[in-house]
């Protein structure tokens, strides 16, 4: 026995071939069936084929407690995190069935053991397809107003399913993903628990993934204990000197973009800056970055400021993974980046002694924090 909804769908599908017949050739009784069918079809088109399945979580919203050094997590009104959506998102995040050849999961490029990055210069998609950018960490992306290096997604929800369908990433259409997941009874029950019915839609997948990702928070580093926890012994003398250089506009000038606030620190302003990385021989950018979204000339070669939390564990660096070590990064900035017409005004040659460069690197190592215990691969429940 199908649900009333399912029989309605079957009934409608049955009338559609007849609906294609020219109206003049149809008998009166048939026309009585056809008219509502036409209206229904028309309404369907007007509605943009929007799924009638509710994508709102049904469970009780849970509070995601930020660790020391992080502010409250911003939550979109239409996707309050629940125990069920988070658990579902976690399962999806580690599921290789979301890729065309069942070889890659989200976690393949956002590996928890590598600070939710992949340690590669440029990430590889299914069949070794070459991407163009370095995998950014998922940790603390909950706080970012825009996602991806170029900010092309305005929410974690919008970001979440995009790599699944990207031809150089997981390369699987959303229809195929939905159908593959739908054949797993475990998912059917998890979707029912999370959203009220067993139907799988890409919108539900996005919401669950986003809610799980909002729990991947990293704080409580030595820096946090020093700056926000009142533990003045948490940093070494070299790290304390490095922190001062990091904040000093006349020296490192790092905190201008890798921000530290009074009560918390994201180490990113969430904005886009051109530091010259990736500029070609003729002052042009093969990867135009933010410009791709805004078409604003000054956004050429601008990329989102990445967080520096866990930076010691997330080499290589920059949107193209071109810098292999923290020393290379510090030297890159000390040298004033790469000149080009769109270079951010904050990028300039910095006079740093060898000791100062080493102090800055020591400070960056103090940003390695804890991750919550339940963000790794789900157990066999």
């Amino acid at each position, binding site marked *: 026995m199908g649900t009333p909804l399912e029989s309605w769908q079957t009934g409608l599908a049955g009338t559609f071939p007849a609906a294609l017949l020219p109206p003049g050739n149809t008998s009166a009784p048939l026309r009585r069936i056809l008219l509502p069918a036409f209206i229904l079809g028309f309404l369907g088109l007007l509605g943009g084929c929007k799924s009638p399945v509710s994508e709102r979580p049904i469970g009780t919203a849970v509070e995601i407690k930020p660790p020391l050094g992080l502010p409250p997590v911003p939550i979109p009104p239409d996707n309050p995190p629940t125990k069920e959506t988070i658990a579902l998102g976690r399962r999806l995040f580690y599921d290789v069935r979301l890729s065309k050849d069942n070889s890659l999961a989200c976690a393949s490029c956002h590996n928890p053991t590598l600070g939710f990055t992949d340690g590669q210069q440029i990430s590889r998609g299914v069949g070794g397809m070459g991407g163009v950018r370095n995998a950014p960490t998922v940790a603390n992306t909950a706080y970012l107003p825009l996602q991806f290096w170029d900010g092309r997604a305005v929410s974690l929800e919008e970001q979440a399913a995009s790599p699944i369908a990207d031809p150089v990433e997981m390369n699987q259409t959303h229809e195929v993903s939905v159908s593959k997941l739908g054949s797993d009874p475990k998912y059917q029950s998890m979707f029912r628990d999370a959203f009220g019915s067993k139907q799988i839609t890409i919108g539900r997948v996005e919401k669950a993934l986003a809610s799980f990702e909002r729990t991947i928070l990293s704080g409580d580093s030595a820096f946090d204990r020093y700056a926000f926890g009142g533990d003045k012994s948490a940093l070494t003398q070299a790290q304390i000197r490095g922190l001062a250089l990091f904040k000093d506009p006349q020296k490192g000038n790092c905190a201008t973009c890798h921000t530290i606030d009074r009560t918390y620190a994201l180490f990113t302003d969430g904005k886009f800056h051109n530091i010259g990385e990736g500029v070609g*021989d003729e002052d042009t950018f093969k990867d135009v970055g933010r410009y791709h979204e805004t078409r604003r000339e000054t956004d050429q070669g601008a990329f989102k400021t990445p967080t520096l939390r866990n930076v010691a564990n997330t080499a290589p660096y920059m949107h193209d993974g071109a810098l292999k070590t923290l020393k*290379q990064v510090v030297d890159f900035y000390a040298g004033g980046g*790469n000149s080009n017409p769109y270079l951010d005004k904050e990028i300039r*040659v910095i006079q740093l002694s060898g000791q100062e460069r080493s102090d800055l690197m020591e400070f960056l190592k103090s940003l390695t924090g804890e991750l919550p215990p339940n963000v790794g691969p789900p157990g066999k429940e």
Partner: protein
Amino acid sequence: MKIFHWLNHCCLFSAVVMTLGCSNAPKNVPSTGPAPQPAPSFYKVDPATAGSLTGTIKFSGKKPSPKLIDMREDPACVEAHHGKAYDQSLVVSSNGSVANAFVYIKAGLEGKNFEAPKSPVTIDQSGCWFRPGVLGIQTNQTLQVTNSDPVTHNIHPMAEVNREWNHSQGPGDAPLSRHFIKPEIMIRVKCNIHSWMHAFIGVLPHPYFDVSRDDGSFEIKNLPAGTYSIAVWQENLGTQEQQITVTPHTNTSANFTFKGK
């Protein structure tokens, strides 16, 4: 008048280069602009009319005492340099010969349009040192920048006539290729990361230049017969000029002496 003629050639050449560079230009579209420009005609030296020019650069003053360079700012550089590094801004041999002076034809070639060689001129960053420290290049010839060091450098030609630029190059990074499109004597080059590193590049619209060797000698070959102004530039000693006349199949000598205290 002559200079205008020469500039005219330059413009013509740039226009053709720009046209050729536009590989995505649609084909078989009727041109509405001016008629296609002919390929630039480059000046070819007739060996029957060419001579050569040799000489030495001397310094009559007291030989400067070696000045040690301190690389301790970057310990990796101390290691990479293999031994002590000395200031090279004035290198004088025991008999007063000056190395690393840039010698070039300053005037007398106007109106002749020389094609840039296909082979690049390379500057390497090795042992946290630019090698060579003084070099010449033709306009539009490729300057290839390499980094043989285990550290990041940031090459910064502080050009005033050409476009100024700086670019970071990490260990193992691919070579950079750049061009200077206008003559400029001399472009000071520094590394934005290592304060002691510097080099000088002389950019000329012709191939008649040389850098003096350790014995102070230089040689300019295959120079069309004519009267020229030959100039020498040295980082600390400044510049000197003299008029010379080159005749076919002969070697003309031109020596320079910088007076010192």
